[in-house]
């Protein structure tokens, strides 16, 4: 074996002065884009590639773009690494580092495989809102201070393990509460609520149950007009993404099946995890084999397949770059569309 390229420097001094930074143009590439419908060409160009930005995570989840004034790249990505109870920051040109630990469990007893935070979002003030498994709450990280609990109970009973959230334009937080963050999951003796709900949390702290018709509600996101709420079911026995009407009073009305992976062609049956919606109403939903791209009418257009399991997505930069938390990797792919809410 010829390893002449292996000549190495021992970097003992002045790395920062050298301007050593993460390679920003030549990231490793994995996976592929499956094209099931020509309409996908308007959302993902034929030469779009999945880039691996960093790896080595246990189970990456909940990517959120944090705009930052004065930042050369306009901001950075935060995401949860659930098993090690951490939120990771990835900054282009710098790399990944621990942003927050503990992120979702502050206890001392062992709390199973997934104690950390899961879904993340920014509120209207730009503060980080977290779904916390171990502390079983929705929290907000205050500027210059600690966390404030926004909700940890419904009707006096502790949540199972808040999983993912969507913040409405009026400030209401809608979130899902399946059992994945409990050490023994559905059989856990710590459970106080015997179903997995979708909840509405208003700014005054009021928590109202909106639905318990989904066996394992998981990913959740609003359509661009905030009058429809999509919720994934991660239960493979009922692999249906549902669309809820948001009523005038701000509560959820009737739901309808929006997409059923068991009836779609080209993909296998399977439940869904995190999802986001673009400005045109297309749904980018993690599901069997990758990120399913589904038209507003419920038609499967394509799939972004990293080749690994994938938990969630989130737009960043100018709104066109889709970040993917895919098992041990943080990846991204450039899209031809923009995430809902990006201007």
């Amino acid at each position, binding site marked *: 074996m010829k*390893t002449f390229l292996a000549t190495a420097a021992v970097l003992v001094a002045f790395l920062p002065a050298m301007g050593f930074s993460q390679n920003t143009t*030549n990231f490793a590439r994995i996976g592929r884009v499956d094209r099931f419908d020509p309409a996908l060409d308007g959302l993902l160009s034929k030469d779009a590639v999945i880039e691996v930005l960093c*790896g080595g995570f246990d189970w990456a989840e909940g990517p959120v773009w944090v705009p930052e004034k004065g930042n050369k790249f306009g901001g950075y990505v935060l995401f949860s690494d659930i098993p090690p109870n951490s939120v990771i920051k990835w900054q282009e040109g710098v790399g990944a*580092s621990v942003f927050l630990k503990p992120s979702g469990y502050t206890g001392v007893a062992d709390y199973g495989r997934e104690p950390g935070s899961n879904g993340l979002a920014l509120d209207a003030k730009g503060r980080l809102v977290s779904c916390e498994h171990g502390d079983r709450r929705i929290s907000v990280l205050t500027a210059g201070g600690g966390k404030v609990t926004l909700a940890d109970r419904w009707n006096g009973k502790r949540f199972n393990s808040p999983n993912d959230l969507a913040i409405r334009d009026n400030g209401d937080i809608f979130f899902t509460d399946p059992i994945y963050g409990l050490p023994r999951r559905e059989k856990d003796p710590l459970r106080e609520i015997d179903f997995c709900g979708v909840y509405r949390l208003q700014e005054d702290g009021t928590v109202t149950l909106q639905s318990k018709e989904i066996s394992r509600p998981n990913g959740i996101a609003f359509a661009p007009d905030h009058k429809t709420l999509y919720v994934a079911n991660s239960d493979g026995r009922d692999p249906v993404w549902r669309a809820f009407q948001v009523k005038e009073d701000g509560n959820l009305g009737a739901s309808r099946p929006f997409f059923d992976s068991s009836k779609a062609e080209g993909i296998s049956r399977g439940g869904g995890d995190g999802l986001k919606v673009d400005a045109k109403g297309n749904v980018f939903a993690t599901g069997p084999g990758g990120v399913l791209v589904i038209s507003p009418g419920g038609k499967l257009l394509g799939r972004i397949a990293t080749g690994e399991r994938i938990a969630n997505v989130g737009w960043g930069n100018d709104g066109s770059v889709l970040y993917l938390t895919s098992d041990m990797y943080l990846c991204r792919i450039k899209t031809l569309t923009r995430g809902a809410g990006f201007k």
Partner: protein
Amino acid sequence: MYIADYVNHQIFKVAPGTSKPVVFAADAMMNQPNDLAITYSGTLYASDPSWSAKTGQLWKITVDGRTTRLAGQMELSSLPNPLNRLGTTNGIEVSPDGRTLYVNESAQRKIWAFAIDSGGNLSGKKLFKSFEDHGFDGMRCDVDGNLYVTRYGKGTVVKLSPSGKVLAEIDVLGSKPSNICFGGPDGRTAYVTEVEHTRIVSFRVGRPGLAWRRWQEATDNQ
């Protein structure tokens, strides 16, 4: 920063704040050198393979630039066995306590652990880990002494415990990882040069890199 010049049998030094390499050490008896490891006190160890002969040497370079051949090549009859016999020495690293020098032989697929004595010389050699397939290239320790070894040809980095147990194996998305270092804001990002696609791949690790930690301590003390 020290740079192994594998063409001209020498090691460059680049002083902080400058970008001009000056010759720090040179020895016509070197085949290459290929890779470097550094101790807390600044002593360098260099691997020095002969690819054609499938042998190799090890060098010590003290802070004054003096070179000493510590091991390798048969003509050094004054050296006791088994230090005489070495394969294609390639990746090289010193443990956090400065008492063990790890050297891999990429053609022979063995990683050796040499005992470093108080004079910085080698006093013993034992097999640390061997593999049946592919090769090795550069390797580095984290602060706990776990050794991350590039598996050249296989396309992975293996994390070995100080007792030689495989703790993890990380796919680097290309078959030819050639070297590794740790950096980033918390020293817990591994950066790997990968030759097949000529790119840098990064992944997260549990503990900071040894060299990164030393750099932090050095700058904290200023």
